[in-house]
């Protein structure tokens, strides 16, 4: 219900909100973009095509893709298991899935250091096998998976709960196998929220800083993701470089926001139909 009289209060509130959001949210974006191009397009291109920059971008993509793939796989199976069956320990599983959201990214990094680091009981075995996780790429991938862990399952579970199990039961009664039931009956219900979850997961994965920072060891060109590379440039007073790399992430963020709105709209329309 919209307020009918458009008193001055309305415009004071709108103005206040707009001003606050502009200063807090838009100004930083404008600043990133303007600083990135401050020394001209040439410097910008050099900054983003720098050998280490490209490596950081590739590592970020790798970590993000891994997180999205693992979390999608996990999200779909976990949602199926939690919403389609009754079993003991279901509550514990749900709680554990959401746990990473309540843990500070630094602590997320810490628990992996404790698990795979030098003082861990696993460490001798890992070394024998020649696997290094801490201060190496696997650690970064693991940390990224951890901080984005519940993003996809959280989106799917409420939709499947709301849809109920009747359709799957009906299909199973008619003799359909699990594969057919999932693709023909269940998947159409979750396709938009699944994509929505993937977008959220991507956003968080590519920007994760704290947890990755603990696990990376900051090896330039090896274990630096984009946010870590930005930190490195920034601490080396290469502000233009830092903001140039940042500008890529800003553009990605805007793309993600637009995708998010589109998916939200499509999902809503689909549910209403």
């Amino acid at each position, binding site marked *: 219900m919209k307020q009918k009289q458009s008193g001055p209060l309305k415009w004071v509130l709108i103005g206040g909100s707009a001003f606050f959001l502009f200063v807090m949210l838009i100004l930083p974006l404008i600043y990133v973009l303007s600083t990135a191009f401050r020394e001209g397009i040439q410097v910008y291109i050099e900054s983003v095509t720098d050998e280490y920059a490209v490596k950081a971008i590739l590592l970020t993509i790798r970590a993000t893709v891994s997180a999205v793939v693992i979390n999608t796989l996990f999200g779909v199976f976990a949602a199926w298991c939690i919403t389609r069956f009754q079993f003991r320990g279901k509550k514990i599983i749900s709680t554990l899935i959401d746990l990473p959201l309540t843990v500070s990214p630094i602590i997320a990094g810490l628990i992996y250091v404790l698990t795979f680091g030098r003082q861990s009981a696993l460490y001798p075995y890992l070394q024998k096998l020649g696997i290094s996780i801490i201060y190496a790429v696997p650690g970064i991938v693991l940390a990224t998976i951890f901080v984005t862990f519940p993003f996809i399952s959280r989106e799917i579970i409420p939709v499947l709960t709301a*849809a*109920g199990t009747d359709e799957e*039961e*009906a299909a199973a*009664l*008619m*003799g*359909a196998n699990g594969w057919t039931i999932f693709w023909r009956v269940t998947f159409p219900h979750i396709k938009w929220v699944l994509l929505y979850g993937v977008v959220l997961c991507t956003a968080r994965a590519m920007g994760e800083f704290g947890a990755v920072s603990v696990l990376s060891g900051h090896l330039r060109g090896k274990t630096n993701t984009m946010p870590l590379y930005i930190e490195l440039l920034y601490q080396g007073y290469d502000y233009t470089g830092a903001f140039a790399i940042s500008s890529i992430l800003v553009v990605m963020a805007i793309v993600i926001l637009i995708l998010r709105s589109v998916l939200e709209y499509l999902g809503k329309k689909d549910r209403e139909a």
Partner: protein
Amino acid sequence: MEQQYYVEMRDINKQFGDFQALEQINFGIEKGKLIGLLGPSGSGKTTILRILAGLETAETGDIIINGQVVNDIPASQRGIGFVFQNYALFRYMTVFENVAFGLRVQKWPKSRVKERVNEMLRLVGLEGLEKRYPSQLSGGQRQRVAFARALAPEPQLLLLDEPFAAIDAKVRQELRRWLKGMISTVGITSIFVTHDQEEAIEVADEIIITNQGRIEQIGKPVDIYRNPTTPFVARFIGDSAELENVHLFPGFEYAADQIKHAIIRPEYLTVYKKGEPVEYPNSVEPGVVVQSAFRGTVTEYQIRLSDGTILTANRLVDTAPLAEGEQVQIFARRLLAFDEERAFPVENICLAGVRPYVI
């Protein structure tokens, strides 16, 4: 050799955690019959249906379909068509795809799928709606799709869970008749669950009444209505009022000592307006009209007796109307007496003749 049943449940027990959902369920159903499973919610009727279908598993007991114990046969191979309470139509498939689903997973050849789906849609009267999605159909149409989908793979047994619950009252009446007609056309053995006694009485060939996980009575609707055998059924079926003081009612004093509880139904009562000829003047009881309601062919009156009991009685609309507060006389032909274990009818002494009839 006992009677050969088509569907049978023997000594079925089922628990959900600490809750005894079903206790020693035994019944048999003849081929081609339409059975109503009737009971209040939580009485176990839906659980019986789901166990028959294989959607739930009983702790003990046997399920026999067509002479074969099917306990360990998966739901999909029991040859059962199931209509879910909210139909469970596949929301993202067209009407055609919904009906074709069971045939496709059973690997029917393409041309036969098409033929069979069209045949089913013709049968349920939904030709021309093949391309619609369930959300574009009315409640009644959805039920027809669910029915067509359940019947398409040629099941030997059709199970329907509260088939009319999701439909508004006006269409419900029409659909009941439609469904009964359709099932007799197809000739398939069917069991439906309902909590609505009117629905069960109207649609079913035979009714199984459940209460608190047990079967109370099995029988033809008319038998169940006329001769309830347990206190629960006596109270549950029909529009009954409970009588506190049986001995007050003239004509039943002779049996009052043996009757612990009794109920009386509107059709057992005749209401006489002052001045109307009374058939058995010695057996009428005075009362006061408290409320009246027009019910179409009859007018329903609430009448208070001298001890405060309120009875419901009907008079045809073409008789003289009774005003609220009016003094009337009531004659009861019979009442249903029951104790903890059983129920039995008791006739008014005037009608029972010289030898009063007491069971």
